[in-house]
């Protein structure tokens, strides 16, 4: 039978593991879930009897009915997990035996594993540890309860919670090597069995299919990786590192959007991959978007990807997990020496009635300038020489975004510059478009690869010049050349957040380091990375079979260490310690034998004393005293005094002849 403590712990473990579900399930299900728990606790304190089977079946049916009406079925992870929560809580109605309590605790463990379907962030680790600890402690109590039930006794309950926690923690620590081995080596599916949790990727969705002022700004705070690129040969100069992403043609006065045309027309002319100077492997983090990133201009089209007329790489499905592809790029490629009418029109289109001041200025420039390139140069000079500021916290803009930016605020970052520049060009009759993507990257000398983070997001312009085709112009570089040299954030000396203190930044960076490690090594550790786990040892690719072999080998070695070596070490240590008590007793027996007494190793101390005392009558009192003291030292719970025994034996002498 269960004792009170194990009931309480079983309920605690269950409640802890269902907490996040309780918080996220529809509100009317919460009382249904809590009711059986409350009933079970009352039953424990009021000694209620288990309720009849028929009522339990009825309660189960009602609960399933409530679930079906809430979720419209039992499929889907929310409904399925809610079902598990509800059934587990109902299980308490019949949990009166150790076996049932074990089931409840085991399923609580399973329940807390289902949390990973919803969230995989760092706070989850702490929560899961709490779940594991409470479940382990419950198991311990149940085990103790069972062990003592044979004796019909209550287990001692005066152990401190801290002791239990320590014990649970040490059990977890013991299991850690095995857990890590299984995590790293248990073969994974190439594609996940189910989608990643909703919020696993939210924070790093990266660039999107439209650009409003501020959309890239959010990314500057995000140091999580966007992708990594490993180059064959050297890494290109920073000014060549323009990673092409979404290209925007349509502008409605405030928002830039991709055009239907450019998205669906395929590139009819590609660079020759053989002649492309940059060859590299990209390992892209999931974005839930369809863009793949490549340096200008991509020469290869990865599998299930198309290359559009403006050289965007668009995958047929959103990238939901780590994706690797090989890419080649040729920066010298000439993009569209001839521009189709439809595209030309799209590249000049502007909304009516926006930004009149800019329009007037551009009309002036057009009159004064002889050629398109002169206007371009003049625009860049304008940005460079006027009091333009590169800042990540620009003032808000209202209707005429470009006018206000150019003439009033003069503060902004790449988005503002690219947007304003492109609008200026179009007003001057030069076809132009906005390109977003990433610029630069952090070279990791240890892994010798380029890490491109979300904070490297960038926006620039492209203008179409007769004769040379689309040409990249980065107006931000004209204002803040160091942006291109050092990256967006590092180029600013100013505060990035409202509360920007040294220690806070350090704490943030440290947490970010953990977060990145967690993302890198836990969340995005998929089949692909797993197969390359041992590449530093020279095994480039490990298939499932080899992984299983490696896993079994490591588990066997770990097992051998735990089960063979550890006891041997322990034994070795204990055998080195001689037992002073036995030596002392041996000394005493030798003294008796000198007097002619025949002892035998099978004699107990008191037996020996009785025999010897009979033979050596004068010493019998001393012999008995020594035997008693020896018995106390050797067999009792710390009642003997070894020092006294040592003295007694050392002083013991035989004067009488045996048998006298």
């Amino acid at each position: 039978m269960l004792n009170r403590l194990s009931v309480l712990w079983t309920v605690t473990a269950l409640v802890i593991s269902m907490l996040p579900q309780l918080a996220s399930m529809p509100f009317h299900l919460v009382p249904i879930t809590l009711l059986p728990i409350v009933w079970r606790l009352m039953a424990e304190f009021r000694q209620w009897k288990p309720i009849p089977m028929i009522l339990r079946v009825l309660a189960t049916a009602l609960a399933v009915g409530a679930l079906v009406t809430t979720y419209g079925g039992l499929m889907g992870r929310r409904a399925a997990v809610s079902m598990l929560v509800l059934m587990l809580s109902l299980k308490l109605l019949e949990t009166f035996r150790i076996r049932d309590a074990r089931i409840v605790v085991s399923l609580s463990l399973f329940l807390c594993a289902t949390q990973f379907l919803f969230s995989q962030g760092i706070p989850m680790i702490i929560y899961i540890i709490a779940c594991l600890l409470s479940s382990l402690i419950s198991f311990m109590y149940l085990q103790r309860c069972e062990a003592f039930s044979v004796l019909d006794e209550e287990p001692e309950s005066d152990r401190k919670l801290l002791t239990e926690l320590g014990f649970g923690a040490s059990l977890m620590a013991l299991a850690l090597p095995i857990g890590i081995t299984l995590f790293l080596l248990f073969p994974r599916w190439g594609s996940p069995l189910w989608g990643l949790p909703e919020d696993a990727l939210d924070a790093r969705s990266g660039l999107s299919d439209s650009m409003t002022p501020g959309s890239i700004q959010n990314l500057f705070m995000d140091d999580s990786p966007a992708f990594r690129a490993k180059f064959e040969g050297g890494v290109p100069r920073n000014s060549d590192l323009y990673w092409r992403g979404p290209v925007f043609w349509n502008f409605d006065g405030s928002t830039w959007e991709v055009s239907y045309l450019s998205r669906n027309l395929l590139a009819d002319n590609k660079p020759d991959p053989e002649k492309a100077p940059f060859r590299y492997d990209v390992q892209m983090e999931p974005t839930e978007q369809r863009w793949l990133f490549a340096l200008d201009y991509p020469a290869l089209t990865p599998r299930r990807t198309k290359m559009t007329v403006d050289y965007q790489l668009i995958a047929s499905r959103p990238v939901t997990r780590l994706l690797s592809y090989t890419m080649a790029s040729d920066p010298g490629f000439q993009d569209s020496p001839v521009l189709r009418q439809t595209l030309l029109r799209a590249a000049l289109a502007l909304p009516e009635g926006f930004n009149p001041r800019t329009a007037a200025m551009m009309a002036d420039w057009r009159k004064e300038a002889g050629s398109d390139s002169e206007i371009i140069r003049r625009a860049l000079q304008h940005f460079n020489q006027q009091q333009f500021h590169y800042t990540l916290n620009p003032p808000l803009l209202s209707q005429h975004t470009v006018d206000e930016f150019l003439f009033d605020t003069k503060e902004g970052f790449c988005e503002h510059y690219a947007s304003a520049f492109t609008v200026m060009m179009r007003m001057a009759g030069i076809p132009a478009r906005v390109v977003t993507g990433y610029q630069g990257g952090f070279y990791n000398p240890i892994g010798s690869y380029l890490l491109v983070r979300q904070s490297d997001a960038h926006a620039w312009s492209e203008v179409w010049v007769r004769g040379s085709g689309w040409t990249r112009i980065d107006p931000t570089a004209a204002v803040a050349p160091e942006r291109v040299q050092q990256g967006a954030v590092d180029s600013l000396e100013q505060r990035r957040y409202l509360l920007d203190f040294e220690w806070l930044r350090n704490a943030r960076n440290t947490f970010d380091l953990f977060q990145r490690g967690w993302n890198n090594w836990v969340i995005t550790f998929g089949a692909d990375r797993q197969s390359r786990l041992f590449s530093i040892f020279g095994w480039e690719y490990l298939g499932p079979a080899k992984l299983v072999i490696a896993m079994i080998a490591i588990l066997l070695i770990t097992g051998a260490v735990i089960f063979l070596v550890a006891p041997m070490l322990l034994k070795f240590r204990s055998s080195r310690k001689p037992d002073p008590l036995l030596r002392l007793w041996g000394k005493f027996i030798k003294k008796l034998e000198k007097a002619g007494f025949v002892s035998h190793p099978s004699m107990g101390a008191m037996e020996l004393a009785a025999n010897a005392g009979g033979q050596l009558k004068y010493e019998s009192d001393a012999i008995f005293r020594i035997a008693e003291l020896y018995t106390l030292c050797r067999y009792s719970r710390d009642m003997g005094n070894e020092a006294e025994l040592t003295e007694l034996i050392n002083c013991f002498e035989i004067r009488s002849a045996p048998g006298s």
Partner: protein
Amino acid sequence: MEFSLQTPDSEGHRHDRLKDAVNTVNSIVMGKEQQVKLAFSCLLARGHLLIEDLPGVGKTTLAHALAAVIGVRYQRIQFTSDMLPADILGVSIYNRDRETFEFHPGPIFSQLVLADEINRATPKSQSALLEAMAEGQVTIEGETHPLPKPFFVIATQNPLDLGGTFPLPDSQLDRFLLSISLGFPEPEIERELLTARDRALVLRDTQAIISPDDVMQLNRDCQKVHVSDALLDYVQALLAGTRNSRWFETGLSPRAGIAMLHCSKAYAFLEGRDFAIPEDVKTIFPSLARHRMSVPHGMETSVNEQISNLLNQVAVP
């Protein structure tokens, strides 16, 4: 040897009453101090007792006396060759008024059961009893009835060479913690027996000294008796010794080893110690091992001799 029990008062009182009980039983069953002590330690270790001896040496008197001083409900089952399991366990009888089957518990539903001449019954009836002993419950027609607590069985068995006996198989003998034999009394004791009051009358006047609750509590006290590593080594050495085919056909099982430990603790407790010593183990060992083991084929010695040989061979750590 005087060791004081360093225990709280209530425990000390319990222990005093236990001593009284032992003395009372000794005054009824005269001249069998050792066997009485073993019987008590068997009860304290929550084991069942097997008494093997000729009829008329006082087996029943011992069981009666134990039941009387403990104050438990007592039933005697006389085993015969035509006995059926229902005679022991009870039977469900149809009640016409209430139109249901009603369970009528058999004699086994009491706290102390004297199973007299157990080896005269057929194996089927024997196993009905032995199952109840092992499980502490009885299952009849799919329904489980728990037996009262504490539950002790004292079984007597006539020597196996007597006619009309069905020997108990080894696995069932294992259910008994200890087996003792009483033997004929010493001449002076016998003389006293002949002249003293009728034992049955003495028994009738005997008052309960300890209660069934006390017994449960004493069980727990016994479990608290300290066992040192050295003593565990000794118990293990003895177990290993029994498994050597030089001595016995089959050795003692780990379950018997646990029983040995429990029993040694109980004996130490009876002796007034809160720790067990090798002498305790040595004392209970023959009673514990005798009915569980047999001598290898073709050996001239008896089990008792082999046991004492083994005890003389194994060194006390």
